[in-house]
C-alpha cells in the first residue's frame, strides 16, 4: 500500500485534470478483456454437487449467449461428473441437453440408468430396514446415524427435499454439540443447493450457538455460508463483511460449495458496492493476504479465473484512489465471466449499478463545484448522460448539489438548517391547529349525540 501512495503523490497533478484516464502505460498488469472462461480450470476448483450444478449453469448461460463451444465443453464435463455419481435424473437431463452433439460416447445410456436405479432401490430398502431396527432398539446414536445415512443417500441421488428432511430429523437424536454441528453443516449444504437461503441463515446461527469452541475450518465454512445467504438476500454490506471475515484457513476445504477465489470475488464486489472508504481500505489489505496464502498453497492452478483475484484487488485499489474510469472499465471487462457464476448472476447488475453510483457520489463529494465536462471525461461518458445520472442521484438525495445546466457545472448545496427549522416549526403549528380544532369539534358532536341518546332513553 505504501508503494501505491508514493506513486499517487507523484501523479496528483495529472490526476486533477484527467482523473483516471491514460494510465495504462504506467502499469503492466494483464488485462482481462473478455477472454473466454477456461471451463476445465473453473470446474477443477470445485467438487461434489456444486461442480455439476455450476457446469450446468455455465452451459445454460452459454446457450443464452450462443457460445456453443463453451456450452458443449461444460456439458461434456458435466456428463463425465454425473456418470461418476448416482443421480440418474441429472444424467437424463444432461444427455438430453447434449442431444447427440458430442458423439456416441456422450449419449443417453439407459442401461446405466437402470442399473443405478436398481442399486439405489436395494440400498434404500436396506437403509430403511436398518433404521427401523434401530428405532425399535431405541439406541439414539444409531438412529441418528441411520437418518444421516438416509440423508446422504437422498442427497447423492438428487432428492434434495428428502435429504433435508432426514438431516433435520437427526436433530432429536443429537447428543453432543459435534453432532449438532454436523447436522447443521449438512442442512446448510442441502439448503444452498436448493437455493433456500433463509434456512442457510438459520442453521448457521444455530451452529454458531453451540457451547464448545468450533474448529476454525468449520467457523470459516459457517461464515462463508452466512455470506452467501446475505448475498442472496441482497444484504451486500453484511455479505461483504462475512466473506472478508472468512480468512485463509478455509483453503480448499469447502469446495463442495465455494472456491476460495469466489470468496475474494464475491467479497470484493459486495465491498465495493457497499463499504465506505475506511472499510474499503481494510478490505484491500485482507484481499492482499488472501492472494498471498492462495498463491503459496495452490501455485499449480494459475489459470484465468484465478487471476481474477488480483484483478478484484486492483479494481478496489483503483476505486479507492479515485481512478474511476479504469475501475469501471475493468469491471466491464470482468462482467462476461462473472455472469457465468451461479451465485453472482442475479445480483451482478445491481452491484454494478451501486458501484457506479458510489463512484459518481465519491467523485463529487469533496468539491464545491465540478465541471461536468471534466467529470464526463473521467467517467468516459457524455455530458447529457452524466447529467441524467446525476439528476437521479440528486432526486434520491444521495448527492447534495444542484446542476447549472447552462454552464454545465455542478454546485454543492448545503441546506440552510435555520430556514428549514423555521419552516418546519410554522408548519407543525398549523397542523396542530387544524388537528386540535377538528378534534374539539368531533368531541362536541359525540357529546351531543350521546346526550340525545341519553335523553331518548330517559
Amino acid at each position, binding site marked *: 500500500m505504501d508503494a501505491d501512495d508514493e506513486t499517487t503523490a507523484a501523479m496528483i497533478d495529472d490526476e486533477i485534470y484527467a482523473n483516471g484516464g491514460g494510465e495504462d502505460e504506467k502499469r503492466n498488469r494483464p488485462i482481462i478483456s473478455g477472454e473466454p472462461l477456461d471451463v476445465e480450470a473453473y470446474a477443477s476448483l470445485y467438487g461434489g454437487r456444486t461442480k455439476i450444478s455450476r457446469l450446468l449453469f455455465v452451459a445454460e448461460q452459454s446457450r443464452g449467449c450462443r457460445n456453443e463451444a463453451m456450452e458443449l465443453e461444460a456439458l461434456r464435463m458435466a456428463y463425465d461428473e454425473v456418470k461418476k455419481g448416482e443421480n440418474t435424473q441429472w444424467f437424463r437431463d444432461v444427455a438430453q441437453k447434449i442431444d447427440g452433439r458430442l458423439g456416441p460416447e456422450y449419449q443417453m445410456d439407459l442401461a446405466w440408468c437402470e442399473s443405478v436405479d436398481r442399486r439405489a432401490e436395494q440400498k434404500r430398502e436396506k437403509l430403511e430396514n436398518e433404521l427401523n431396527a434401530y428405532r425399535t432398539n431405541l439406541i439414539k446414536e444409531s438412529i441418528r446415524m441411520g437418518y444421516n445415512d438416509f440423508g446422504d443417500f437422498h442427497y447423492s441421488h438428487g432428492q434434495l427435499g428428502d435429504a433435508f428432511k432426514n438431516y433435520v430429523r437427526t436433530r432429536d437424536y443429537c447428543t453432543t454439540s459435534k453432532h449438532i454441528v454436523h447436522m447443521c453443516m449438512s442442512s446448510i449444504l442441502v439448503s444452498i443447493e436448493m437455493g433456500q437461503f433463509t434456512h442457510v441463515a438459520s442453521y448457521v446461527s444455530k451452529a454458531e450457538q453451540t457451547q464448545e469452541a468450533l474448529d476454525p475450518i468449520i467457523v470459516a465454512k459457517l461464515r462463508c455460508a452466512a455470506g452467501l445467504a446475505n448475498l442472496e438476500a441482497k444484504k451486500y454490506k453484511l455479505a461483504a463483511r462475512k466473506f472478508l471475515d472468512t480468512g485463509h484457513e478455509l483453503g480448499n476445504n469447502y469446495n463442495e460449495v465455494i472456491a476460495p477465489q469466489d470468496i475474494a470475488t464475491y467479497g470484493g464486489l459486495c465491498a465495493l458496492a457497499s463499504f465506505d472508504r475506511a472499510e474499503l481500505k481494510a478490505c484491500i489489505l485482507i484481499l492482499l493476504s488472501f492472494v498471498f496464502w492462495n498463491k503459496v498453497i495452490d501455485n499449480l492452478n494459475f489459470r484465468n479465473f484465478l487471476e481474477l483475484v488480483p484483478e478484484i484487488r486492483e479494481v478496489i485499489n483503483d476505486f479507492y484512489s479515485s481512478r474511476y474510469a479504469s475501475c469501471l472499465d475493468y469491471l466491464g471487462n470482468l462482467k462476461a465471466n462473472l455472469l457465468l457464476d451461479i451465485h453472482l448472476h442475479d445480483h451482478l447488475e445491481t452491484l454494478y449499478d451501486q458501484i457506479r453510483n458510489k463512484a459518481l457520489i465519491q467523485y463529487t463529494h469533496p468539491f464545491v463545484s465540478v465541471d461536468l465536462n471534466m467529470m464526463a471525461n473521467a467517467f468516459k461518458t457524455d455530458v447529457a448522460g452524466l447529467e441524467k445520472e446525476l439528476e437521479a442521484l440528486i432526486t434520491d438525495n444521495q448527492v447534495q448539489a444542484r446542476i447549472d445546466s447552462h454552464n454545465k457545472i455542478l454546485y454543492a448545496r448545503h441546506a440552510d438548517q435555520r430556514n428549514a427549522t423555521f419552516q418546519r416549526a410554522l408548519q407543525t403549528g398549523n397542523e396542530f391547529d387544524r388537528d386540535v380544532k377538528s378534534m374539539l369539534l368531533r368531541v362536541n358532536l359525540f357529546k351531543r349525540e350521546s346526550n340525545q341518546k*341519553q335523553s331518548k332513553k330517559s
Partner: protein
Amino acid sequence: MEVLVVNIQGLSTNPGDLPNLHNILKQAHDSLHAESIRLLPLLDMLDPSLHSLGYLYILEACTSSALSKEQASAVVLPTARFMNSCSKEQIQLAPEKFISVCKRFKDYVMQLEAPMRGVAPMLAAIRKIQSSSEHLTPLHPEFLVLCLLSKCYKAGLSILDEDIFEVDQPKDLLLYCYYGGMICIGEKRFRKALELLHNVVTAPMSVITAIAVEAYKKYILVSLIHNGQFSTSLPKYTSSVAQRNLKNICQPYIELANSYTTGKIADFETVAQKYQEKFDNDNNLGLVKQAISSMYKRNIQRLTQTYLTLSLQDIANSVQLNSAKEAEMHVLQMIQDGEIFATINQKDGMVSFLEDPEQYKSCGMIERIDSSIQRIMALSRKLTTMNENISCDPMYLAKVGRERQRFDFDDYDPVPQRFNI
C-alpha cells in the same frame, strides 16, 4: 288585531314586560296564522328594532303559507330590514321562529332569482342568533348557499375564518363544511378547503349520506391539487360506515388519484377522459382540470430541487410539455403566483432557479410566529379545559366505572362501581 298591535307597542320597551308579551303572542299564534299574508300592512305600524318580538311573530305568520311571486317580493324587503335591525335580546326568546323566518326568506330570494339580495341580511341574522362566534347555527349553511349562488365568495370567507366548536345539529355542520369547502375552492384557498372537507368525511355518522359522498369526491381532487398526493386510508377516528363504503362509491376518483401519483401526465389525462361524463355530472370537471395543471406545477417544482439553471426546452422535455413557449408560460405563471422563485433569461432561453428569499428575520415574520404561538397556547388551554370537563362528566364516569375491574390489588380506587344519578 289592533289590540295586539297596541300590546306589542306598549310592552316592547320594558325588558321586564317581555315575558308577558311573549305569552300574549303565543296565545295569539293561531289567529295570526289564520290571517297570514293579510297581516302585511300591520308591519308598517311596527318598528323592527324596538318591537322585534312582535314583528317576528307577525312576520312568521305572514310567511307560514305558500306565497305567490308578487307576495314573496313584497315580503322580502321588510324581512331583510328586520333581519338587519332586529334586537338580539328579543329574538333570542323565540329562536326557532327566527330561524324558520330566515329560511323562508332564503327560499323567496332564490325563487326571485336574486340570491345576492339575501347575502347581507343573512349575515346579520347569523350574528344576531349566534350565542358566541364559535356557535354554528342552522343559518350558516343557508348563508353559504346564498354566497355560492351569488358568487359572493369573500362574504362567505369572512364567516369561514371563524372557528366552530359548538354545533346544534350535525347535519348543519356537514352542509356548512361542504359548502364552505366549495367556497374555499372558488377562492383557491385549498388548505382551508381540505380542512373543511376533511371534517365532513371524518364526522361521526351512523349512515352514509350523499353529503359525505360528494364531499369525499371533492376531497380527493383538492388533496391532489394541494398536496400532490392522496392516501386512501382514512384516519382512525372516521366512522366505520365511512371507512367501509366511501371508497367503493367513489371508485373513478380513486383511480384518478392513483394515476396522479405515477407522475405521468398522459396517463392522468387518459383516466380523466375515460370518466369525463361522471366528473361532469358531479360538477367536478373544473377541479379535474386544475389537478392536471397542478401536475405540471409539481413537476416543475421538482426541477428546482436539482437544477440551478435549466433551458426552457429541457423543462418542456422533462415535464412533457409541447414546446419551450408553453414551458415559459407555465414558469411565468408560477413565478407570478409565488409558487417558485426564478428568473427567465429570454435571450438564452434559460431559467435560473433561486432560493426562497425568506430569511425569517423580518418584523412581520416575528409577529406571525408570535401570534401563532399565542393562538396555539389558547387552543391548548381550551383542550385542557375540555378534558377536565369530560373527566367530571357524570355519564362518562358512569361508563368508566362500569368497565373497571372488580378488584384492583395495586390501587384501591375510591370510584364506586355504580354511579347513580
